[in-house]
């Protein structure tokens, strides 16, 4: 069995907002129709000639060739095509519109093969973490394993809702109950609300957060959650329960900058990351991070990083161009 390379997904479908749209259009209606049952498919008999798709994973920088434990509980949802998943010594054959829930530390492998043929499919991953959730998309075909950048949705209510759902569905063993359904629905509804941010930016921010005072932390979280829309200082300070003056003072004392400059730097960082990983045009990215004027965005970008946004984008699109043949193949598999 050859090793499939993990190829970055580029273009519009690699953007976090697109992934959220997919959740809103495919996952939420599916839960509304069938409840939490869609994440508990019955296992199928172990296929006769089964194997694993070997693929390199640039998230963990390793070769995936055997089942591995889940570092966080996650939901796996098949958007189109079909797929074979191995979870805790069972095989699950999934079709579009179904998914599976994998608890914490559970041995699993997402892509299985039968008779050496690779099932083609488009997957959505939602990992649950204490700060919120981490989502990404991947596609599998004969030549490669496509993977979109990984996005974090920062909202701690997500984790809390998930815990309650897990208590109801797994510990109490009633995934079919109405309570379980409403909790899961609320979870996915929350998931599509705040703007998703590229994970590496979030990792950088979350390191320094625990040392800051609670109100400042709250303010930074608000700025992060609304990075794609213009936000007024008055609103932020009101939500944190402090005055604008005190908010500025806190920012200056602990971060050495003012809130507006902080928010702007955050947006530019996110824009840089998205340009480097998604290959979407700088004009589109400029809108995605909340700038309405491209010239202003370009000027600020140039001033902060020393080079124009278009340069960052061009460098990477050359390396990561999608294979049009395989993209067409996956489109064909959409039911």
């Amino acid at each position, binding site marked *: 069995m050859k090793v499939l390379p993990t190829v970055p997904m580029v273009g519009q479908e690699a953007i976090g907002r697109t992934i959220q749209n997919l959740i809103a259009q495919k996952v939420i209606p599916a839960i509304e129709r069938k409840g939490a049952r869609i994440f508990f498919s019955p296992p199928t008999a172990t296929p006769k000639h089964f194997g694993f798709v070997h693929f390199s994973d640039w998230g963990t920088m390793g070769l995936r060739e055997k089942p591995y434990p889940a570092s966080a509980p996650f939901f796996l949802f098949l958007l189109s095509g079909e797929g074979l998943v191995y979870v805790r010594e069972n095989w699950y054959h999934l079709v579009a519109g179904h998914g599976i829930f994998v608890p914490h530390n559970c041995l699993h492998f997402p892509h299985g093969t039968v008779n050496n043929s690779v099932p083609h499919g488009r997957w959505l991953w939602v990992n649950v973490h*204490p*700060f919120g959730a981490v989502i990404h998309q991947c596609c599998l075909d004969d030549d490669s394993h496509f993977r979109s950048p990984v996005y974090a949705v920062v909202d*701690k*209510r997500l*984790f*809390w*809702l998930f*815990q*309650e759902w897990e*208590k*109801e569905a797994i510990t109490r063993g009633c995934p079919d*109950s*109405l*309570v*379980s*359904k*409403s*909790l899961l*629905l*609320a979870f996915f*509804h929350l998931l599509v609300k705040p703007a998703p941010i590229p994970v590496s930016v979030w990792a950088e921010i*979350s390191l320094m*957060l*625990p040392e800051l005072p609670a109100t400042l*932390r709250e303010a930074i979280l608000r700025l992060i959650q609304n990075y794609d829309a213009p936000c007024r200082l008055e609103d932020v300070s009101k939500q944190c329960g402090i005055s604008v003056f005190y908010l500025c003072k806190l920012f200056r004392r602990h971060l050495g900058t003012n809130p507006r400059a902080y928010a702007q730097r955050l947006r530019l960082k996110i824009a840089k990351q998205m340009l480097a990983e998604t290959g979407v045009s700088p004009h589109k990215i400029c809108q995605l991070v909340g700038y309405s004027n491209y010239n202003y965005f370009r000027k600020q970008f140039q001033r902060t990083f020393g080079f124009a946004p278009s340069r960052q984008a061009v460098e990477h699109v050359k390396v990561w161009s999608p294979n049009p043949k395989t993209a067409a193949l996956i489109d064909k598999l959409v039911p």
Partner: protein
Amino acid sequence: MLPNVLLISGQDEWTKITEVIEHIVLPQLEVNGTSFLLRPEAISSPPSQEVVLVVKHQTPVSRKYVVTQMAFLLKGQAVVLVEGKHKVLKALAGILAPKEFQIDLHGKVGNQTPYSEWLTFIVTTFGAIVTQCRLTPQAHYEGNCYLIVHEGLPELLMKEEQPNKVTIMAVLGLLARARPFLPTFWELLPTSFVEMPPAVRQALQFLHHSYNRPLRLSELAKWCHVNHAHLCRLFRQWVGISPLAYLAKLRMSAAWKLLTETKLPPTLIASLVGYPKWSQFSQQFMRTFGMKPTQVRKSVALEPLKFGDFRDTVPN
């Protein structure tokens, strides 16, 4: 005004409430959306003179802690008053209103007092308060007041301008699975309970059920159908202390439990266990335990919530 009678029943009352939520309210929400929940805007009848308030609806906590108020009419018919305007509701309807609105569930038009059964939820900044009540032409029967301590519950609603179907379903689903904080302290009952005269037994039951409400000795005596002096004498003879001292003991046990097991502010705890005045509460606390309520909190040293750490604060 009708008399307010406390409903004292078995201990599985909470299970009944969760069943009602799960099998009546949630399916209704799932099928019909929030259309059966009236918003204050929908009540637009001109103020009329003939609507009379039968029982005053009291919020168990101060208004500053309230986030959203919800009420479901389970059976019967009711005349509700929102900010002076009234509306007639039929069974399986409800009201949803933010905290600014004054809601009165029990009104009447003319001489007829309609029969109604209500389930009310008040989502507060620290969790929720769930109560059940019933209005008949004779009296207003009030069930236990269940306190649910949970930090995430108000957060779900606080960030929403207009709570939608999914949020309300999630809140109710969580309430259906929550463990309410209502210590009845049956373990504190004297061991000779079975041998006591019925009046004392009734008084003890009453106190264990409703220690968190303001109470007068005459009310208690009326409930037990004896004279208050006689009740006091009997109580002293069988329990050893006066009824009001026993009540204070229960309230203090509840306060201790809330202080050590939750992160609620001490002033709120005082009002939750039945002391509207902080000075009265802290005096009694000092007398019972020999230390200030705030000192207890410090000595327990409940760690503040860390970032990313979302532990459940519901006591076991």
